[in-house]
């Protein structure tokens, strides 16, 4: 299945990209996919990174073909 992963802020900086399409085999929860995407990235506090699946913050959800996933560092609006 194909999943679009978007990276933002310090996660995009560490990954040196803002978006990629992953071709995944197997069953993943959002939390598992997040851990997978963050492997090897120089991020001090990986627990502070949230994952949104189709614009909803839910790390328990199972990833499906065609999902848009986003890795979001701590919010800093305002």
């Amino acid at each position, binding site marked *: 299945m194909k999943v679009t992963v*978007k990276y*933002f*802020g*310090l996660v995009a900086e560490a990954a040196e990209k803002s978006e990629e399409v992953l071709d995944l085999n197997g069953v993943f929860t959002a939390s598992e996919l997040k851990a997978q995407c963050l492997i090897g990235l120089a991020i001090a506090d990986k627990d*502070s990174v949230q994952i*949104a699946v189709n*614009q909803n913050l839910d790390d328990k959800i199972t990833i499906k073909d065609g999902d848009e996933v*986003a890795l*979001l*560092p*701590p*919010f*800093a*609006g*305002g």
Partner: protein
Amino acid sequence: MDKKKPKKVFVQGAILPEKIANSVANHQSKTNIGAHSIFLGQIRADEVEGKTVTAIDYTAYEEMAEKVFHEIREAAFAKFDITCAHIYHSLGKVNVGELCLFVFTSSAHRKIAIEATNFFVEEIKAKVPVFGKEIFEDETHQWKVNK
């Protein structure tokens, strides 16, 4: 009508003081309003380990952010008896001393408008996927985190 229509919140660069004045002027014909409450977020020249912040470069997960802004609006209208509410947030580079957030609520009476504005600001800071790169005078940077 005012409360249901999704509105574009993001503006490129700083929010100009003229925009605030114009927004106030645009509400003078709405004579059921007795109170406006305005919050303005301004970029502060924080000092971190001897370096001074000169600007914040804002980015966002825009599609999700616009959705969350809309949900916050819906929640605010359900919770408070406000006549209207407007939110503008900067994207891109905003220099110290410039404005990056403008929340403007109106109501018949002051307490409701003040509480609604406070609700908007707290919700925006907690829930909207906006990211801020604090740029120092030597062009190095750090990532802002809301407290």
